[in-house]
C-alpha cells in the first residue's frame, strides 16, 4: 500500500485485562482494611451510629512504593492565570480527604482516595473472627438443657403450622404466570402443589451460662479520652457477645468511691465526679456473684476499665479483692487508659497476681483498643 497506511478495527470486547487487574487491586485494598482494623473500630462515626449504617472509609488506594523525593521539601513550578508575586499564598495544606481548589496545592502524589464501603457487619465479622470467650467451661451447663430447633430447609410436605406463606404465594404466582390460560379474574389461588413448609433440625443447645460484669470508673479523673476508649471497648464487647453467644448476661457496674449497678444506657452516657476507690466495685461484683451467679454454675467474666488513678490507701484492699475475683472467674480483664507514660500504682499492684486468668492491658492510644479486645477475649 502506498504510504504504508493500514486502517483497521478489531474486536476488543473480550479484552478484560483492565478489569481483572482492577479487581486484584480492590482485593488488596480490602486486605489493607483488615490490617487497619485497629484504627477503624475506634472511628466515632461507627460508634455513634450504633452500628446501623454502612460506613464509607476514605481509603488511599494501594501505594506503589519507590524511591521518590519528599514532595513537601522541594520547589515546584506552576503556572498562574495572572502575574504571581513571591510570598503570595496559594493554598493551605490539604484538609484530610478533601481536594483543595487552590491552584497547585492539590497535586499531592499518591493521594488517590479510594472509597471503600464497609458495612458495620463486615467490620464486626472480621473483628470477631478472632475473639471468643476464653476458658469457657462446659461443665457449667444450665440446669435445664434444651434442644434448639433450627429452620433450615423447605419442603413440599409438612405440618400446616409450619407453612411458609411467602414461598407458597410465590409458587402460586409462578404457576399462574406459566399457565397458558389467562386468568382474567387475577385472583390468587393456592393449590396443594403450591404449599411449601419449613422444616427444621433439632440441635442440642451447647449454650453455657456466662455472665459479664462490665465495670467502669466514672470518677472525675476519667476525661473525655478515657471515657471514649472505655466506651469503645465495651461497645464492641457487647456487640461481640450478643452476636456470638445467645444467652450471655451483661451487668453494668459503675463506680467512683462507691459502686452501683446501672442500666446499659446510663453506663455509656453518665459521667460523675469524685475520687476513685476501685475496691468498691470489686466488692460489689463479688457480692453480686455470690448472690446471683454461683461460680459452680456460671462462667464469670469481670472486665474493669479505669484510668488507674486509685486512692493509694485502697490499693492493698483492691488487690486482695481482685485475687478473690480471679479465683471465681474464668478470666478477669483489667484495663488502664493512660495518656502519660508511667504505669500507675494500681496496675503495678495488680501485677503481683501471677494467675494467667487476670489479663492486664494498658491503652495509651485509640488504636490499641483492638489489641485490648484481642488480649481479653482470646
Amino acid at each position: 500500500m502506498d504510504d504504508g497506511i493500514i486502517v483497521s478495527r478489531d474486536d476488543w470486547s473480550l479484552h478484560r485485562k483492565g478489569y481483572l487487574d482492577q479487581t486484584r487491586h480492590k482485593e488488596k485494598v480490602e486486605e489493607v482494611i483488615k490490617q487497619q482494623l485497629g484504627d477503624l473500630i475506634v472511628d466515632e462515626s461507627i460508634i455513634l451510629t450504633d452500628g446501623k449504617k454502612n460506613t464509607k472509609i476514605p481509603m488511599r488506594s494501594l501505594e506503589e512504593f519507590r524511591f521518590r523525593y519528599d514532595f513537601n521539601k522541594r520547589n515546584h513550578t506552576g503556572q498562574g492565570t495572572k502575574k504571581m508575586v513571591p510570598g503570595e499564598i496559594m493554598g493551605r495544606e490539604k484538609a484530610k480527604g478533601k481536594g483543595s481548589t487552590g491552584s497547585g496545592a492539590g497535586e499531592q502524589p499518591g493521594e488517590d482516595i479510594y472509597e471503600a464501603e464497609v458495612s458495620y457487619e463486615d467490620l464486626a465479622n472480621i473483628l470477631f473472627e478472632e475473639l471468643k470467650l476464653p476458658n469457657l467451661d462446659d461443665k457449667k451447663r444450665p440446669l435445664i438443657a434444651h434442644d434448639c430447633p433450627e429452620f433450615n430447609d423447605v419442603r413440599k410436605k409438612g405440618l400446616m403450622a409450619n407453612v411458609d406463606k411467602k414461598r407458597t404465594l410465590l409458587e402460586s404466582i409462578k404457576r399462574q404466570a406459566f399457565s397458558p390460560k389467562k386468568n382474567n379474574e387475577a385472583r390468587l389461588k393456592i393449590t396443594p402443589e403450591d404449599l411449601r413448609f419449613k422444616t427444621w433440625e433439632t440441635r442440642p443447645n451447647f449454650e453455657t451460662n456466662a455472665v459479664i460484669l462490665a465495670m467502669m470508673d466514672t470518677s472525675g479523673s476519667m476525661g473525655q479520652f478515657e471515657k471514649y476508649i472505655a466506651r469503645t471497648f465495651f461497645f464492641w464487647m457487647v456487640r461481640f457477645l450478643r452476636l456470638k453467644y445467645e444467652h450471655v448476661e451483661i451487668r453494668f457496674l459503675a463506680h467512683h468511691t462507691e459502686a452501683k449497678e446501672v442500666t446499659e444506657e446510663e453506663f455509656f452516657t453518665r459521667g460523675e465526679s469524685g475520687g476513685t476507690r476501685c475496691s468498691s466495685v470489686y466488692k460489689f461484683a463479688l457480692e453480686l456473684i455470690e448472690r446471683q451467679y454461683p461460680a459452680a454454675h456460671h462462667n464469670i467474666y469481670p472486665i474493669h476499665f479505669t484510668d488507674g488513678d486509685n486512692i493509694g490507701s485502697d490499693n492493698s484492699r483492691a488487690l486482695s479483692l481482685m485475687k478473690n475475683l480471679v479465683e471465681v472467674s474464668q478470666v478477669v480483664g483489667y484495663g488502664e487508659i493512660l495518656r502519660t507514660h508511667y504505669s500507675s500504682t494500681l496496675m503495678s499492684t495488680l501485677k503481683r497476681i501471677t494467675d494467667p486468668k487476670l489479663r492486664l492491658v494498658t491503652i495509651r492510644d485509640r488504636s490499641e483498643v483492638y489489641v485490648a479486645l484481642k488480649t481479653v477475649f482470646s
Partner: protein
Amino acid sequence: MDYEISTINTIAREIAQVARGMGLDFYPVNFEIVPAETLYTFGAYGMPVRFTHWSFGKAFYKMKIQYDLNLSRIYELVINTNPAYAFLLEGNHITQNKLVIGHVYAHVDFFKNNRYFSRTPKDMVERMGAHAEKIRDYELQYGRELIERTLDAVLSIQEHVDYRAHIGDNEIMENVPYVSNNRSCDRTCTAKTKNKLNLEKKKRTKRASFPYEDLWGDLLEDEYKCLPQPEYEDLLYYIMKFAPGLEDWQRDLVSIVREESLYFYPQIETKIINEGWATFWHARIMHELDLTDAESLEFALMHSQVVQPSRMGLNPYYLGVKIWESLAKAKSDDELFEIREIENDLSFIRNHLTRELVEELNLFNYRKVGAHWQVTETEWEKVRDNLVQQLINGGHPRIVVIEGDYEGKGGLYLKHRHEGIDLDVVYLEKTLTLVQFLWGKAVVLETVVDTKKVIYESFNGLVSRRQMPRAGGETV
C-alpha cells in the same frame, strides 16, 4: 470496510502527504479504531498487551473514572514501533480525526528521528506480548502470590536502570563493582584523608565567610577525593546478576521489567518536547488543509482544549508547544528538525525556555512554607533552573550501587546521590524492604535527611535508621 474505516483511510492518506510535504519523516503507521474503554486500557498499560499487575488495574480504574466523569479524554495512543501503531478513539469527528492523525504523524516522526529513541526496539509490541505470556506461565508454575510479590518489588525500582549506557555504544556491562571492599586507597590516601578532615573542620568553623565558598569547598574536596568511587547505576541489572538468593525465573522477571523500563524511559524524558512537537505540527498541518468554517471552529476548540493551561503543575502540551512556537519565529524549519533530533526535555527547557516565555506563561516556583503553599520565585532563571532540576534523571532520585558484599556479609550497599532534595522517608523505608526481598540479605541505603547523613538498613522486613558519624565516617 465500514464507513469510519474508509474515511480515516482517506484522511490518513491526505494528511500523510501534507505532512511529508512539510518535511516530517515517519515510519508507516497502522491505524486502529478502538472504543474508549480499550483505549484507556492501553493507556493504563502503555501497550496493547502487557503482563498482569494490580498497579495497572489501579491506573486503569483512575483513567476510567476520569473518562466516565468527563474529566479527561484520550483521543489517540501511539506506539513507538516500526511500523508504528496508532489507536484512535471510535466515534471521533472527522475534524477531530484530522487533527489527531496529524498529531500521530508528528509523534512517529519524533520517535523515528530523536536520538533518545535510537536504541529502543522497534518490535516492542511482540516482545511485550511474549513477556506477558512468559509471566503467565510463571504464574501457573509458581503461583500468583509469589509472582506478584516479586513483581511488586521489581516494579518499585523499575526506574533505576542505566538508561544512558543503553543509549550510548553497546558496551557489555560486565565489569561491575562487585565485592569492592578493597577499593579504598590504602596507604597513599591516609594523609589525604586527614587533610580532608582538617579541611572539613575548618569549613565548619568559618561558615559562609565569603561568597561561593560552597563551590570552593566542592572543588577542594574533589581534589582530595582519592579514587573515583566505583558505583553502578543499573540497580535492576545488578540485582538480576548478583542477588544471591533469587531463582532463575525471578531473575527473568527482573530482566523483563528492566527491558520494558528501558523502552519507556525515552518517552518519560521527552514528554514536553514530544507533545509540544506533535501539537505544533498538528496545528501547522491543519492550517495547510482546506477546512470549512465549521471545521475550523471545531479544530480551534479542540486545539485549545489540548493546550489548556493546567491549574496545577504544567501542561506538557502547552509548555511544549509554546516553546516550539517561539523557536519557529526565529529559526528555520531545518533548525527545528535538528532540535527535535538531538534534544530531550531537560535540554529543551534549559536551552529554549526564555525570559519572555516564563513571563508570558506566568510561570513561578512555589513550595511549602509551614502549612501553606507559597509562591517563592518568579525570576525566569530560577523558574527555568527549577524545571530543569525536576527533569534530571527523569525526575527520579539517583540511587547507585556501591557494593554487593557490605560488611563482608553479602549485604547490598546503595547510595542516594543527594542533589539538594531529601527523599520521602516513608516511601524510602517501604521500598528498601522490597529491595531487601529481592536481594535476600541486608540492604543498606545511605542518604541525607535534613542535612545529616543517614543510613537506612533493611533486614528481615525491619528497617533501622542510624546517623552517620560526622567525622571520619567516610567509609564509603
